[in-house]
């Protein structure tokens, strides 16, 4: 049986040299999911029969000497807000409980074209709204490092599936930190690319100007390979950028000389957990020892990021989620008086509390008399936040910071206090407002055995710099080799 402790890149090498088969690997993943997921609850659905058939077909293709894709035979899990043709896509919402998309998302097409094997769909906060995966209508995902703690969110299922070594890689989406924060909480690598780098076609929209799809993996090189496969222009997403995709997997092993690592003083203020602070400061020492220069700088508008984000994201959500009206797809109430009542009843029954809260906040912020004071104001502050980063990246190549103020918080700790939950996104949200790429990688363990994540950010389309800088750190440390206790 192939060991799932190997990284995606290593598993592909094993597949290429015939050391293992995709069928055996996929079977191992499915068995591991059966054995472990009753406890972790990362998956909303698995695709056992079809994925084994797909794996077998790829094995035969490879055996016959036919050309195969870059991920040939690699089992992958996908967050359940990306459309998969013929496979349920629920957004962890009652309103889409039985939705079976008639088409594949752009990233799913790319994974299939690269001969990846889609083993299942992972849990999330409903419509990707949340920071703990507790807002799922179906189940709460638990942290493989300590099941009493959250996995973070919203892509918590995808992070946990990789952390528990149920799959070697997965996709998530990141609107305010939803890939990076769960990666940090689960001790894996998670990456949000530049806005426009990866097609959003078939990603069920939460906040369209902020959403971006990205990979989870157990190491930086595997994240680089997954990113390379899913990146690229797609005419079906009008914000998809038409520029060449670098071969991230080919350059990731090359260290950067003269690397300048920026640290923002606003990231080291009251509220930052002492162990997290110590781990992040040790990371700076690692970079110093590798010859990097540490540059202290300022992001003066940092403290406005959360307020800006929640106004913009909620406004966009209120507009995007208007499509769920009980007509074309999704839940329709059984009892209603007229057309308007059918909409309101269907939505009232189908959406969970956090989704309702954000739709309400967005509707309020966009409504007559409040638009200028809330939504327009937030768009202006967004520009100030972007300018902070433009100025910062004139002085450094990557910015290093914590991913969150604390390691994974406890289940139930913040879920009844929406504002406190929003405030927990302090370190990740600005990157979405500015549209820049970011990555989380393991940089420590707390005294209670919970992972600590280091966030690196870079200028737009500098994914290659980001990955190479991350790989330098990874090569010099052993945090990425730590796995959750059995």
């Amino acid at each position, binding site marked *: 049986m192939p060991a799932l402790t190997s990284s995606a890149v290593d598993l592909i090498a094993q597949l290429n040299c015939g050391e293992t088969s995709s069928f055996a690997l996929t079977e191992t993943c499915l068995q591991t999911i059966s054995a472990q997921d009753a406890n972790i609850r990362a998956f909303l659905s698995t695709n056992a029969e079809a994925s084994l058939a797909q794996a077998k077909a790829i094995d035969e293709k490879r055996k016959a000497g036919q050309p195969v894709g870059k991920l040939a035979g690699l089992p992958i899990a996908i967050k359940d807000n990306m459309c998969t043709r013929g496979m349920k896509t629920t957004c962890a919402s009652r309103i889409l409980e039985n939705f079976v998309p008639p088409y594949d998302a752009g990233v799913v097409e790319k994974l299939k074209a690269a001969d990846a094997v889609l083993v299942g769909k992972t849990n999330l906060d409903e419509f990707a709204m949340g920071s703990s995966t507790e807002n799922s209508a179906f189940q709460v995902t638990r942290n493989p490092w300590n099941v009493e703690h959250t996995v973070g969110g919203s892509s918590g299922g995808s992070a946990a599936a990789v952390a528990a070594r149920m799959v070697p890689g997965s996709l998530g989406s990141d609107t305010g930190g939803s890939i990076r924060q769960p990666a940090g909480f689960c001790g894996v690598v998670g990456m949000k690319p530049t806005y426009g780098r990866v097609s959003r076609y078939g990603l069920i929209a939460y906040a369209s100007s902020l959403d971006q799809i990205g990979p989870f993996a157990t190491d930086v090189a595997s994240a680089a390979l997954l990113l390379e496969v899913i990146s690229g222009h797609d005419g079906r997403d009008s914000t998809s950028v038409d520029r060449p995709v670098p071969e991230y997997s080919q350059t990731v092993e090359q260290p950067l000389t003269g690397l300048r690592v920026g640290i923002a003083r606003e990231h080291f203020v009251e509220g930052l957990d002492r162990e997290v602070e110590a781990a992040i400061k040790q990371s700076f020492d690692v970079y110093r020892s590798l010859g990097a220069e540490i540059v202290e700088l300022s992001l003066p508008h940092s403290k406005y990021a959360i307020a800006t984000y929640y106004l913009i994201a909620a406004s966009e959500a209120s507009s995007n989620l208007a499509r769920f009206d009980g007509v074309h797809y999704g839940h329709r109430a059984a009892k209603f008086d007229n057309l308007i009542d059918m909409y309101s009843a269907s*939505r009232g029954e189908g959406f969970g509390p956090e989704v309702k809260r954000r739709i309400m906040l967005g509707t309020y912020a966009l409504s007559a008399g409040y638009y200028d004071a809330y939504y327009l104001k937030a768009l202006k502050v*967004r520009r100030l936040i972007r300018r902070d980063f433009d100025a910062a990246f004139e002085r450094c190549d990557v910015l290093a910071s914590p991913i969150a103020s604390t390691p994974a918080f406890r289940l139930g700790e913040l879920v009844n206090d929406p504002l406190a939950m929003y405030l927990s996104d302090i370190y990740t949200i600005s990157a979405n407002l500015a549209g820049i790429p970011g990555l989380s990688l393991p940089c420590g363990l707390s005294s209670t055995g919970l992972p600590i994540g280091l966030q690196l950010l870079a200028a737009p389309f500098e994914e290659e710099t980001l990955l190479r800088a991350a790989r330098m750190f990874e090569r010099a440390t052993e945090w990425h080799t730590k796995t959750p206790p059995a």
Partner: protein
Amino acid sequence: MAEPLTKETVTKVAHLARLKLSETELDLFTTQLGQVLGYVELLNELDTTAVEPMAHVADIANVFRDDEVRPSLPRAAALSNAPKTDGKFFVVPQILEEG
């Protein structure tokens, strides 16, 4: 701004958002949204009169393509997730009142 959020306003917003909420939800959201709106007042510290709003970060203006006929979803696939159809159309309750 800054006047406290009332249950009446929350009820009105729920109607605009087409969300049927229970009395309990209306009470809870009045409190919780009030807290969030109180928090976002923070932005008023900043003078943004000379700042252009930034709706999105992509350096893209209009994206055009040729107006060509291309394949689209077959009708059966488009209707496959609908709560109610007659096999040809989406079926909704009567929209116009009887005259």
